[in-house]
Structures are given as C-alpha cells and as structure tokens.
C-alpha cells in the first residue's frame, strides 16, 4: 500500500476533511428529501420513484462514485489525523484537562465512529441490496428492490427505530461542530461571518437530523 498519502501536510489533510465534510452535508439534505417521501400516504409511489431515479440516472451514478470516494476519504483521513494526534502526546497528563472548549468538540472521532457503525448497518439494509451483495425477498413488479417495503419493515421494529433516532442525535452533535470547524479550516474566520456560520451550523445540525428522526416516529406512533 502506498502510504505517501499520510505524508501530506497536516493542513492539506484537514482541508480535504473540511471539503469532503461539507460535500457530505449537501448530500445529506438530498437524502433527507428522498426519505421524507416516505411520509406521503401514497403507497410509496414517490419514494419508489425517487429511489428508481437515484438508482438509474447516469449523472447520479457518477455522483454516487464521487460520494463513496469522498465518504471513504473522509473516514480514512479522520482516522489518520486521529492516530497522529494520539502519537503526538505519548505521555498523558495525570489531571484531566480542564480547559473550557465547545461541547463535544473533543469527541469528533467518537461521534464520527458511531455514525460510521450506523452507516455500515444502513448499507447492509439498503445499498448492498441494490448492489446485489445482500439477498432480498422484497421486489417491485419491475424487478427492482422494493426499498419502500424494506424501509417500512425496518421502521416497524422499535429497536431499529430507537437506534436510528439515537444515531441521528449523535450525528447532530457531529455536524454542529463539523460545520463551523470546516469553515475555520478553510480559512473563513471573520467577525462579519462567524455568527452566521455558527447559527447556520446549529440550525442545520438540528433541522436535518430532526427531519430524519420524524420518519421512524411517524411509523411507530402515528401510522
């Protein structure tokens, strides 16, 4: 394996982390838009149509590769940076650091790790079925995987829904720190914009995860 990638400067790696993180945040909004189609009482027509479009459109297919590469790179860089950070302090302090820092900013690798575990479960349930890597008895009359039925079956399971809700809360904490940190890393730190960036980050970190959380609540409690 060529490890020259690890030798890129610390700032280069961080800039890539920031760009990729912001790219993934844009994708998350698109994903939310599709998921919210589940809330329509149309027998899954909109959701299936959206899933069909995402699965067959050539532009989306290209973006899918970019998305996957970006996601893997984001995770890989996060791990490389974290290992380097651990190595930078081989002897720890006896007294835990008492410096006041933003809530959860010290735990990005852990919140990111939890989100990664969930994403693996998510891929097994959905994406690997589409890829034909996981068997699936639910098929549409057109012979495509019936993601609407799969989603409803999963959200009908209280344990899965609870896990889903908890993980999106964790993702919210990750995104809150990530958004403003990404702009800081990209050099955007100015009194004129800092307040907007911070507020928009909080808004995004609440609204987007909440949008995802509404779906299992709807299937568990309302429908």
């Amino acid at each position: 394996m060529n490890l020259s990638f690890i030798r890129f400067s610390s700032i280069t790696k961080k800039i890539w982390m920031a760009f990729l993180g912001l790219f993934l945040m844009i994708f998350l909004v698109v994903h939310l838009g599709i998921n919210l189609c589940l809330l329509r009482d149309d027998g899954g027509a909109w959701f299936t149509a959206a899933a069909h479009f995402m699965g067959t459109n050539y532009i989306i297919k290209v973006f899918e590769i970019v998305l996957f590469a970006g996601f893997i790179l984001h995770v890989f860089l996060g791990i490389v940076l974290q290992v380097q950070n651990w190595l930078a302090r081989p002897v720890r302090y006896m007294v835990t650091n008492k410096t006041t820092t933003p809530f959860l900013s010290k735990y990005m690798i852990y919140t990111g790790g939890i989100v990664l575990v969930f994403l693996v479960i998510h891929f097994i349930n959905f994406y690997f079925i589409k890829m034909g890597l996981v068997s699936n008895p639910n098929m549409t009359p057109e012979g495509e995987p019936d993601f609407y039925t799969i989603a409803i079956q999963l959200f009908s399971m209280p344990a899965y829904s609870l896990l889903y809700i908890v993980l999106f809360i964790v993702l919210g904490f990750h995104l809150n720190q990530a958004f403003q940190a990404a702009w800081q890393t990209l050099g955007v730190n100015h009194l004129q914009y800092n307040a907007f960036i911070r507020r928009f980050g909080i808004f995004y970190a609440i609204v987007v995860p909440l949008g995802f959380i509404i779906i299992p609540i709807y299937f568990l409690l309302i429908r």
Partner: protein
Amino acid sequence: MKLTLKIWRQKDAKSTGKFVTYPLDNISPNCSFLEMLDILNEQLIRKNEEPVVFDHDCREGICGMCSLYINGRPHGPDDAVTVCQLHMRKFSDGDTIVVEPWRAKPFPVVRDLMVDRSAFDRIIQEGGYISVNTGGAAEANNILVGKENAELAMDAAACIGCGACVAACKNASAMLFVSAKISQFALLPQGQVEAKQRVKKMVRMMDELGFGNCTNTYACEAECPKLISRSNIARMNREFMCAKVI
C-alpha cells in the same frame, strides 16, 4: 496558606518520573506561584534534598519561559496570565495542587518540570523572520501599513512562544503558535516577499517535529496567556492554500 503539592519529579530525560507529594505551610496568598516554588526549593535544599527544577526567566510574563501544567490547565487556574503572574490567592487554603510538565512528543522533559521547547526554535528557523539587507535605516513611512493590519500583526506578534497552546491542545498541536508567527508577517508588506516559502516551510517543520493536528477545539486560544486568536489559524490555512495552489 497551607497547601499540598504533588509535583512531577524526573531525574533526567531518560528516567521514569513519578509524582512526589510535598506539604507546604505559611504561604502568603500574595506570593506568585513561582515564588511559592522558590520557598519549597529553599526548604528542600535545607533538608539536603534536590530542589524542583522548573523553567523561568523574566517573571514579568513576557519571556515565555515558564511552563507548568497546574491542576489540569497550562499556566494554572487564572486566565490570560503566565505562571509567573499567577498568584496564590487564586487557590484556597488546604488545596492540593498537582504540577506537571508540558506533555507533547516534541517537548521532551529535561528534568522535573523543565521541558525542551527548542522545537519552536526550529520552526522559527524555517521562516519566522524577514530577510533584510544591512544598510542605512529606511524611512519608516516609506511603506504604509493600514491601521487595522498593524493592530492585528501586533496582536499576533504578542505570542511569547511559551507552548501553552501545545500543552492545552488534546492533540498537542502547535497551530496557534505557528499561525501567530506566520500572521505577524502575512499582515505586513514586509512579510510578503517570503510569504509562500515561509508558510510552506514552517508547516512542514511543524509536521516533521511530530506536533498533532488541529481539530478545532480552541483549547489553545482559551489558554493562551497572550490571548492569541484562532483567527490566526484560519489565516495560516488561507496562506497555506494560496502558497500551494497559486
């Protein structure tokens, strides 16, 4: 004041250190922290014991030599001061005070609480200067500098290189120090000539020495005795991107 001190004692760089507890009585709340350590050392010398070795020099908060990690905070519980400017009135009678050296791979412990911070000197040697030919002094107003940039450059230049940013950062990152040294030149016309080489070389040296990566917790800014702003880190990132791309 009556205090219990738990101090890191380490014979030399290769030895394994340990915490040693020292009870201390009759300490004036008006003592500085370093004066309190002086009193302890006088008592140790009278008992024929080795005094505690710690870094210090000007004791006016401007040289950047003092470097103690006190009860979980670099430079102790007060904000925006170095240890020499920290007074014992910031502690309570009967307190137990744990004193540790800065902990970072590029800052090896030399002895007890003394750490080798020459890593910072090596970063500065890579470009923390401007090259000026010798000759007659130029007229100061030949090159005009905007008031705002002059102020920001002066703020960045206030960095005394004590290493509290590295000590406070959970990743032992030196980004605040390096960014302050880069910013003080990046903001001024005199710094533009070598700007691209400066940022590339100083960042490369910072990485080579084994400092960690910034993860934007801003502990460095919170503990900096000279209130160096994290906006300098953003400026350094911009400088670095421009130097690499353009």
